[in-house]
């Protein structure tokens, strides 16, 4: 029960969160999410896929801790899909049955070996070609394999796949029992040719049907197979009691054989050894020209299910393996807030997500107050609370939790709207539901969370290149511990930091070391800080020498509610060493804050009166609407504005941004140059021609210039600008420093690093390497080493092997070393940005 309560608590408060670092099961070849096709029998012809299915018994687990006796089809044992032999290994039981993927024109063979105590069979609804069945005995709907593998033995079914689409295979024997027990699975038939009008460079398997409008993103192909379970009937079968189908009363509702929240675990999760198929759907915000995701939905249960997506409508394109067309024969798509899928039906949907709210995981997360950590129960990275009910916000994390989401993505439920089915044995939420995960546009990316100079020195100011004459002031300070904190005890201690640069010069700001939040109460501006420990409900821990220290954004709570949409004065507590307040915000104005859903710009702050500070603000900046606010949180934000005119990807006008300056006083952007982000593109602002007109360089730091529209949000990107001065004595002078990326989710793939930088003199060659956590050595990036020379910026992208992603106590860490051995001349190494891109699991 406490198990249940914990999950429910998280769900009720948060709805969602990340599924982190669950070890994979046997299915090593599976991708973390998406449709998984079963292997064909070794030796199958190119156009004659063969599958050996075995019926058998096993158990499925449910999120409330129950386990239910099931029957299912499984593959013959071993990856090689070898026939069963006496005394040999038994199949790995799985439910539902394996996904059988074939293509049009294939001669498909499916053999059935029956280990159940009664005759069984397979029918193939929707396959309209002649089904040839040999072996076994004649049955009602098709030939059947006798009970317990008895003579005359196995049945072989053969048919030609003639029409692309999504289909069911299921038992044709004693159906009211065998289908309830789990004898079902999916057949995917793909086109064998690119349809007429298909885009150049596409392949047949990117189309759901023989129509170019059914193109989908092949990395986003999903299957949702819906079923129900009556545990009492299953128990009756398990113990040999009479089976009365008229007593059917479902208590569990499954997607791909799992009930929510298990549905969002990875494919092949070791937690669910007999339920290999996950149902998490991952998409990215719509990008022009990008094909949508495809959801193949099948209802193998006995009742219709009204399936409802949050966030965006689904688009129905086909039913029962047939495209739905208009009288002229053209595809007839229909959008659905919820659509009922009948029993035995299949339906194919496309889905995309359009960001109507200009969602941004960093500066425009969904505005939901975070509850106090002390009111929640956490359990390491399996927690169900993300820091924000709608995620998208990467705030301070509790001790023991390294990350609550992957990279600022957020989640929608996708579930049966018959809400009794959105439960596990009447406990909600659960059952027939999964999540739709929206990753940031362009995928996940990160910037260093800490840097450390190993050879050379920090060079504040400094450069002359690329119009950069001064390093932008960091939005938030970041440094490292210079000496370990060896005790978790104590309320007030002193720590030494590598540098105080970038942090406020005044005391009483919050910092974070590992998962502990601390408050600097003395020593600001120096390298020795007196800190008050375990703030914001966090628990003290020990911290290693070199641990990352990050500044926590200013945060406080309104002292008085805002009862007018025109009030421009906010009253907040000034704060003390031990309480939040105005002193955690920048001493100099302007800066941006968020109050509920409204953004504001603080343009003046008055001295303390009676322990309170008055902020004078511009209301409703960045396109938000002034509203009334209660005693709610006030949070600091980086610069943000909106475009006031369209900007093309290239050509005339592409290097000038016109931004809103009326209610969005652009002043909280730093002096040029600095980096902004619009959608997935990074743009360097070189010059502010006027306050609202900027001269820019497009598509920097490895991103691609794309067209943007008026009202698109322009966000300042808080990347650090690194200038490291080489050693100044001796022979060959060297600048060497390391950058740490943290919080990269376990299981992330396709890691790549984009380096943008140069040196102040022409001679030296900068080499960028990564730390191999397996060999414990610096190693070249792939496929060729990353080197850069010259006095103007080089932009280089290279891959990082998975050995570059730390595990265990180094979980989520990627270390990058930038080393420039030089000449006898002192020089500076400049890195405009280091960006890590990856695909989160």
């Amino acid at each position, binding site marked *: 029960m406490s198990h249940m309560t914990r999950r429910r608590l998280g769900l009720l408060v948060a709805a969602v969160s990340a599924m982190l670092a669950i070890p994979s099961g046997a299915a090593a070849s599976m991708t973390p999410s998406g449709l998984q096709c079963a292997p064909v029998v070794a030796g199958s012809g190119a156009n004659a896929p063969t599958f050996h299915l075995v019926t058998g018994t096993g158990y499925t687990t449910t999120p409330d801790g129950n386990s239910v006796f099931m029957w299912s089809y499984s593959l013959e044992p071993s990856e090689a899909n070898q026939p069963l032999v006496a005394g040999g290994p038994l199949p790995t039981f799985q439910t539902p049955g394996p996904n059988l993927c074939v293509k049009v024109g294939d001669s498909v063979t499916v053999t059935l070996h029956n280990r159940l105590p009664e005759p069984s069979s397979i029918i193939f609804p929707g396959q309209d070609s002649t089904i040839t069945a040999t072996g076994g005995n004649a049955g*009602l709907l098709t030939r059947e394999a006798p009970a317990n593998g008895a003579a005359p033995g196995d049945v072989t079914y053969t048919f030609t796949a003639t029409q692309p689409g999504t289909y069911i295979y299921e038992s044709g024997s004693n*159906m009211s029992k065998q289908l309830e027990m789990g004898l079902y699975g999916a057949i995917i038939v793909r086109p064998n040719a690119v349809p007429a009008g298909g885009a150049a460079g596409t392949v047949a398997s990117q189309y759901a049907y023989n129509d170019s409008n059914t193109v989908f993103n092949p990395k986003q192909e999903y299957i949702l197979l819906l079923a129900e379970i009556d545990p009492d009937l299953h128990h009756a079968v398990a113990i040999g009691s009479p089976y009365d189908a008229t007593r059917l009363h479902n208590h569990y509702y499954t997607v791909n054989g799992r009930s929510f929240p298990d549905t969002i675990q990875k494919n092949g999760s070791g937690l669910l050894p007999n339920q290999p198929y996950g149902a998490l759907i991952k998409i990215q915000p719509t990008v022009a020209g990008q094909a949508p995701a495809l959801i193949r939905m099948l209802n193998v249960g006995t009742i219709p299910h009204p399936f409802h997506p949050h966030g965006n409508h689904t688009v129905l394109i086909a039913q029962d393996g047939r495209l739905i067309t208009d009288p002229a024969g053209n595809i007839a798509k229909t959008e659905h807030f919820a659509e009922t899928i009948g*029993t035995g039906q299949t339906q194919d949907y496309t889905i995309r997500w359009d960001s109507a709210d200009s969602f941004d995981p960093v500066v425009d997360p969904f505005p939901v107050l975070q509850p106090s950590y002390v009111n929640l129960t956490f359990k390491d990275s399996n927690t169900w609370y993300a820091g924000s009910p709608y995620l998208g916000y990467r705030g301070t994390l509790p001790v023991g939790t390294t990350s609550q989401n992957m990279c600022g993505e957020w989640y929608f439920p996708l579930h049966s709207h018959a809400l009794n089915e959105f439960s596990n044995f009447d406990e909600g939420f659960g059952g027939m539901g999964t999540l739709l995960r929206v990753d940031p546009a362009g995928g996940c990316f990160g910037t260093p969370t800490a840097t450390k100079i190993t050879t050379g020195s920090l060079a504040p100011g400094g450069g002359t290149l690329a119009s950069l004459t001064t390093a932008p002031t960091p939005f938030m300070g970041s440094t490292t511990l210079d000496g370990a904190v060896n005790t978790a005890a104590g309320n007030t201690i002193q720590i030494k930091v590598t540098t105080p640069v970038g942090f406020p010069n005044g005391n009483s700001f919050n910092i974070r070391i590992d998962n502990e939040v601390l408050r600097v109460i003395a020593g600001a501006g120096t390298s020795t800080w007196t800190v008050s420990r375990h703030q914001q409900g966090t628990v003290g821990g020990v911290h290693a020498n070199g641990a990352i220290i990050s500044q926590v954004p200013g945060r406080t709570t309104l002292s008085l509610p805002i009862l007018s949409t025109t009030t421009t004065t906010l009253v907040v507590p000034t704060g003390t060493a031990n309480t939040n307040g105005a002193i955690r915000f920048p001493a100099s104005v302007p800066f941006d804050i968020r109050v509920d859903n409204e953004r504001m710009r603080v343009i003046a702050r008055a001295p303390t009166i009676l322990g309170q500070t008055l902020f004078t603000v511009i209301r409703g900046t960045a396109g938000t609407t002034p509203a009334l606010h209660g005693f709610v949180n006030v949070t600091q934000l980086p610069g943000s504005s909106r475009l006031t005119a369209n900007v093309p990807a290239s050509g005339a006008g592409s290097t000038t941004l016109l931004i809103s300056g009326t209610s969005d006083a652009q002043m909280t952007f730093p002096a040029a140059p600095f980096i902004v982000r619009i959608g997935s593109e990074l743009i360097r602002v070189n010059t502010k021609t006027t306050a609202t007109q900027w001269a820019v360089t497009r598509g920097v730091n490895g991103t691609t210039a794309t067209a943007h529209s008026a009202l698109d949000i322009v966000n300042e990107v808080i990347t650090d600008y690194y200038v490291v001065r080489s050693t100044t004595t001796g022979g060959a002078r060297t600048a060497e420093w390391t950058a740490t990326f943290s919080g990269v989710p376990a299981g992330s793939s396709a890691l790549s690093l984009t380096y943008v930088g140069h040196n102040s003199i022409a001679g030296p060659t900068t080499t960028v390497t990564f730390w191999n956590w397996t060999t414990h050595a610096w190693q070249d990036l792939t496929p060729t080493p990353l080197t850069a020379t010259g006095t103007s910026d080089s932009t280089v992208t290279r891959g990082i092997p998975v050995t570059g992603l730390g595990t265990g106590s180094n979980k989520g860490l990627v270390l990058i070393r930038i080393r420039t051995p030089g000449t006898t001349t002192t020089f500076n190494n400049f890195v405009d940005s280091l960006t890590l891109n990856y695909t989160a699991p």
Partner: protein
Amino acid sequence: MNRLMRRRHLVMRARTNKKTAAAGFAILVALLAALLGGSASAADVNVDLCATTGNTTMPDGASVPIWGFVSANAADCTGVAAGTATIPGGPVITANEGQTVTITVSSSLPAGAAAPRLEIPGIVLTPNDPTTPTAWSFTAGAAGSYLYQSSADSGRQEAMGLYGALIVRPTVVPAGGTDADPTHYAYDNAVSQFTDQATLVLSAIDPVFNADPLNFKYTSGDYTTGFRAVYWLINGHAYTNGDPAITHTAGGRLLVRFLNAGYDNTSMSLVGIHDRVIARDAHLLGTNLFADNETIPAGGREDAIIDFSGSPGVPPNGKGYPLFNRELHVTNGAPSQVTADGGGGMMTFIAP
């Protein structure tokens, strides 16, 4: 006997048409229509029904009391002995577009039952006597498949079997049609052209309800003691054996009319061939929808065409294309049983 009965109800098999003769017939009809002033409607349709009691024997041997509409020869139950209903349901009533249809309903139901009250969802009926109607009239306006039923006793009469199919047929050959007989179209659209048709009225029975229909408590106790259907019927019959019950002209177009007179949403699975759904609730669809699993809501109707031209595949069972209730109501009685060949309930076969 049983099989014959079932065949009669399941199949309205049309004759194969010889196109030349049919074309000549069409010209004759057109000439006649012109002479008669353009009215294609022939005589009005008058149907006399008697609502009466009876018993039906289920495949598991149980005898279940039922009510049904029986054709009467007069506007009352004269000549209809009580207990003569053999299955739930009533005769298929057929009318042409434009005809005036009058249905007279008399009753020999047991004491306590209300007088049957006719309704046909989708059609406005005019009672001949608004206070105590026993006959209703309407003009068959739009072609399609309809359910007639008695709404009296809060639906309990319908649950006992007082329902039946009403077919309204076109009177002119739609544009593009290749068959000159307008009755070989379900709608005024060539897509509905057929060579054969099967009218399938779907329903379900809880024998505990049927034993005492006027006093049964639907929600008594938990789900195991409230209304719990255990027999699942097509045209009043549960599956008994595997013979193909629905036949058709070789290479022809079989029109299947699904009419759900039962209480729940019913998904019918057709294995081995797709049909084309042409209409729902007597309205043509605007899209081309090919399906093999369609849900017919309680009270809903759906018309689908199975096209046998083009050598469709043959199912591996020696009988035909299975057509069965995909909610797995393919058993008989409680505890659920199947027949010797493994079938039961709402199941039939369509010959290849």
